[in-house]
C-alpha cells in the first residue's frame, strides 16, 4: 500500500517515535463540563476557515477607493460561485466572533485563567483585540456607505480616548479624515499585519495550552472520571463539532447571502439607522447611555474611560483573583463574570433593537 511505503520513507529519515509518544500520551480530563473544552478548537477552526476564504477573495479584491466596490460587485456577479465565497467569509466572521465570545465567557466563568494559566488568558485576550480589528478592517474594505460611516464613527470614537486618542485616530485613519489612505492601511492590517500577529499569538496560546493541559473546574475536581486520550476520542469529537459548524456556516451563506450596499460617498449624509456590526453594539450602547457633558468632562470620554477600565480589569483578572489562584472557591469573581456576560448580552440586544 502506498501509505505503508510513505510511512517507511519518513521513518527511514526522521525519528517519529518521540512525536508519536507525545501524541499518544495527550490526555483530556473527563467530567460533566468537558464540553467546554471544544470552544477553543471551534474558534480556531472557524478562524482558519476565514483565512482560506479570505485568501481566495484577496485574489480578486482591489483595495482602491475607485475600484474596491466594483471588485466586490464583480466577485458577486462575474466569478464562479463568487457570491458564495464572499457570503462564507462574511458569515464565517460572524460565527468566529460568536464562537470567540462563547470561548471567552466559558473560560471566565469556569476560571480556567487561574494559576498556572495566566499567560494563556492574556494571550487569549490579545486575540480578542486582534479579531475585533480583523472584523473592523474587513468590514471597511467593502467601501459601501454603511462601512464608510461605521469607520468614521469607530475611528472618531477611538479619538475620544484620553491623552492617546488623537494619536490613535490619526494612526488608524492614515490622516485627519477617512480617505484612500485609510483603505490602504486597513487592507494592510487585514491581509498582512493582523494575520502575522495572530499566527504568533495563536501559536503561543495553543502551545501554552498543550504545555499546561486542560484546566479542570475547581468545583468538579472530585467528579473527574478517567482521562480520555486525545487521539482518537477527543479528536473525533472535535471533528464532529467542526463539521457541524461548517454545515451551519454553509447553510447560512446560501440561505442568507450577504448583500452589497451602495458605494461609499464621502459627501453624502449618514444613512438612517446606521449601526455597527453586532459585536460593537454593546460598546456603542454604553456610549449612548452617557449624556453629553457630566461636570467638567465630556460624557463620551467618561464612558470610554469606564469601558477601558473594565477591559483592563478583565485582562488582569488572573492576577486579581487571588482565591482562585490558591485553588479556593471564588464566588465574588463568579458574580463579576456573570455581570460581564449579562452586560454584554443585554447591551447587545438593546443596541440591536434601538
Amino acid at each position, binding site marked *: 500500500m502506498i501509505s505503508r511505503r510513505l510511512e517507511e520513507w519518513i521513518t527511514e529519515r526522521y525519528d517519529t517515535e518521540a512525536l508519536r509518544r507525545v501524541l499518544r500520551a495527550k490526555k483530556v480530563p473527563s467530567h460533566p463540563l468537558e464540553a467546554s473544552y471544544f470552544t477553543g478548537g471551534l474558534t480556531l477552526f472557524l478562524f482558519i476557515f476565514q483565512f*482560506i476564504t479570505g485568501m*481566495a477573495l484577496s*485574489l*480578486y479584491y482591489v483595495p482602491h477607493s475607485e475600484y474596491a466596490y466594483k471588485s466586490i460587485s464583480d466577485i458577486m456577479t462575474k*466569478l*464562479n*460561485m*463568487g457570491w*458564495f*465565497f464572499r457570503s462564507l467569509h462574511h458569515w464565517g466572521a460572524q460565527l468566529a466572533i460568536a464562537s470567540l465570545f462563547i470561548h471567552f465567557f466559558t473560560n471566565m466563568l469556569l476560571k480556567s485563567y487561574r494559576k498556572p494559566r495566566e499567560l494563556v488568558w492574556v494571550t487569549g485576550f490579545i486575540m480578542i483585540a486582534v479579531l475585533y480589528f480583523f472584523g473592523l478592517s474587513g468590514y471597511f474594505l467593502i467601501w459601501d456607505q454603511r462601512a464608510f460611516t461605521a469607520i468614521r464613527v469607530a475611528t472618531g470614537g477611538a479619538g475620544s480616548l484620553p491623552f492617546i486618542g488623537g494619536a490613535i485616530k490619526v494612526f488608524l485613519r492614515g490622516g485627519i479624515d477617512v480617505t484612500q489612505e485609510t483603505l490602504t492601511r486597513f487592507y494592510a492590517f487585514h491581509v498582512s499585519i493582523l494575520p502575522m500577529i495572530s499566527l504568533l499569538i495563536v501559536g503561543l496560546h495553543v502551545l501554552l495550552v498543550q504545555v499546561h493541559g486542560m484546566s479542570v473546574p475547581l468545583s468538579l475536581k472530585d467528579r473527574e472520571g478517567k482521562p480520555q486520550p486525545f487521539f482518537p476520542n477527543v479528536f473525533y469529537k472535535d471533528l464532529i463539532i467542526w463539521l457541524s459548524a461548517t454545515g451551519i456556516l454553509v447553510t447560512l451563506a446560501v440561505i442568507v447571502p450577504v448583500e452589497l450596499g451602495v458605494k461609499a460617498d464621502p459627501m453624502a449624509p449618514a444613512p438612517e439607522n446606521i449601526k455597527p456590526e453586532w459585536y460593537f453594539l454593546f460598546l456603542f450602547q454604553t456610549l449612548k447611555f452617557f449624556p453629553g457633558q457630566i461636570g467638567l468632562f465630556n460624557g463620551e470620554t467618561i464612558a470610554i474611560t469606564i469601558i477601558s477600565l473594565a477591559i483592563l480589569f478583565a485582562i488582569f483578572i488572573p492576577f486579581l483573583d487571588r482565591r482562585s489562584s490558591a485553588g479556593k472557591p471564588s464566588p465574588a469573581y463568579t458574580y463579576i463574570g456573570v455581570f460581564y456576560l449579562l452586560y454584554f448580552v443585554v447591551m447587545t440586544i438593546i443596541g440591536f433593537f434601538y
Partner: protein
Amino acid sequence: MKLDHSLLTRRTFLNTLFGGWLIAVLSGSVYAFLKFIFPTVGKEPDFVVLNKADFFDIPANTVKIFPWGGKPGFFLKKDDGTQIALKGVCTHMECNISYVPGVKKFYCACHKGWFDDNGRNIEGPPPKPLEMFDIVVAGQKLVIAKKGVQVDLPKA
C-alpha cells in the same frame, strides 16, 4: 449461502467507509474552491470592426495599431499599396513587436527577433511566423478577422 466469517474486518470496513466518504465530501468542496480561484480566462475576439477611412488612408510603409482584445494588432500598408493585418505579438515569448520602416521588417526587442513584412520569422529566436489576419471590407467598415472565421455583420 451464509458465510462463517466476514470477508472484511470491522476496522477495514469502518476505515474505508470513513476514508471514502471523506474523500467524496472533500473533493466536492475542493472542486468548488478551485472553480473560484481559477479565473475564467479572457478570450481573444474572433474579429474586430474598424472604420475603413482611418486605416486605408495611412501613408505607405507605415503601420497603424488597432486593439485586438488586450493585444496590439498591426495594419501595414506596404510601399506597393498592398495591405496586411497581423497580430503584433512575438511568437517567441509574447512580447509586443514594432515595425521598422527603414528595413521594412518587424522587430522584437526582448530577444532581438526579426520578422519580414509578410510576418515570416527571419532572424533570432522566434520559432514561427506572426499570426496573420484576414481583411474584409464591408461598406464603410473594415473588418479584421482571425483566419478562417466566418464574419456575419448585422445590418447596421
